């Protein structure tokens, strides 16, 4: 508890590769939630070890999308039964990463967000080397149990990190 500033937490955690459960790496982090909860928490972290190199897979996905004649469009990933087609796996993973940013920017000590589903994704063709995707995702908030639609614009290139250039909370439709 830091008077006049907020609450700071020291964390020791283990990161696990979603695609390879045996691949883990230790991590330490410090999270500072500010008083008043209207600014995103500050996060500092250190990873003890290296994250897996996914260059080859990244490039395959990148080239596939770049060579599409029509922009990629998809809905409901995963579908109702929980299935994700192999072609959509990278699109799903990209949404996961990007939603992490949105979740971070909107978290307080009283929220627990998870990505529930990608409602819709549409590729936006660009003239430069980046890939751009316009996502509408559904976030599940554990304490209120609410499902919150969120729009996010995601930029990516294999040699650059994922960027969320725009995001906005959407109204829940009746």
């Amino acid at each position: 508890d830091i008077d006049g500033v907020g609450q700071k937490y020291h964390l020791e955690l283990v990161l696990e590769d979603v695609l390879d459960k045996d691949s883990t790496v230790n991590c330490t982090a410090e999270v500072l939630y500010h008083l008043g909860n209207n600014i995103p928490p500050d996060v500092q972290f250190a990873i003890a070890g290296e994250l897996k190199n996914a260059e080859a897979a990244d490039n395959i996905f990148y080239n596939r999308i770049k060579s599409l004649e029509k922009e990629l469009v998809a809905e409901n990933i995963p579908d109702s039964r929980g299935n994700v087609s192999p072609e959509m796996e990278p699109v799903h993973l990209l949404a996961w990463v990007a939603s992490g940013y949105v979740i971070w920017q909107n978290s307080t000590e009283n929220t627990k967000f998870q990505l529930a589903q990608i409602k819709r994704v549409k590729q936006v063709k660009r003239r430069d080397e980046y890939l751009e995707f316009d996502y509408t995702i559904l976030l599940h908030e554990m304490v209120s149990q609410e499902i919150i639609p969120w729009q996010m614009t995601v930029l990516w290139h294999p040699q650059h990190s994922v960027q969320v250039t725009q995001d906005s909370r959407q109204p829940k439709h009746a």
Partner: protein
Amino acid sequence: DQVLHVVPETFQQVQHLQQLCSTLLLDLWKPQLFEDIWAGEDLHIRVPAPLVQEVKDSLDQHMISYKVLIPDVQKLVDQSMPRERSSHRQVPDGYVYTQYHPMEAIYQWMTQIQKNNSELVTQHYLGKTIENRTMYYLQISQPSDKTKKIIWMDCGIHAREWISPAFCQWFVKEILHNYKSDPKISRFLQNLDLYILPVLNIDGYIYSWEKDRLWRKNRSPYMNGTCYGTDLNRNFNSSWGSIGVSYNCSSEIFCGSGPESEPETRAVAQLIERKKSDILCYLTIHSYGQYILTPYGSTTKPPSNSEELMHVAKQAAAALMGKYGTSYEVGSTSLILYSNSGSSRDWAHTIGIPFSYTFELRDKGTYGFILPPDQIQPTCEETM
């Protein structure tokens, strides 16, 4: 033809049975005469095959419980003659337990399960949903002359948690497949009866299949039909409406217009209340999060038997982890999750059921409610 064992509880029920027997000319095996039917006394009635369903429906509608004493009279007759017995299937052909099933299929599954395992399984009427669908539970009970304690398990109180009804179906299948060969299960059934409610929130479940995969509540209309759904797990009469709820229908944790305002809640509560002195354990299955939760959600004050509750839960979590390494957190909802009131688990404990647990199955949020079907089997196996 089947022989049903019925014990009428009230005078009205006796009258109804007398009427049924005389109108349909049913063959009364016990007692000899209609006039000798009394409340609290055993009745054995042979019902001709074409009338079986009609009679059962009529009993259901009058809340008269029955057991099938002889599922197939002809078979029994044949068996009493020296002839070779044909092997029979115990579980329905071709039902795929590693897939999610819509409600229609689950209704059919229940009928089949009872039909194929009638010496052990009876399907019972529980009540009606707000959209007037029938709620049934399955009773798995080995015939015996001693009264047995009951373990109650309900699944699917929240519509979007599909892995939950999938687990109930799996559980029933496992018990019925293995009760003869597995000494643990057979000992279990010698001493305990199992009451399984595969889908509690039927309307919500159907809605999550047809309209909105992430629907949670029931489909009760409020505000002149402009807003739908009460969170059934905030609707029970345990510190109702006090904490962790919303009084606004548009919220996912709307607690309803009062404790037990919803027919689904009342249906479950009435039965459990009626049988509470025999119920040893109340289990309610949810997802996700990987928790075994003990009472209470509305207060951090521990329940009277908190040590025992925790001890059993920790053993369960350890056993679960032993299967595939899946880790479950154990503790009271108010301490490890969040505060809530009106939960079925808290209510069950308050009325005296000693062991009351909420299971939150896989996963921890990676897929959340939309758990891929290839995880049905491992989830069910480890939870079993």
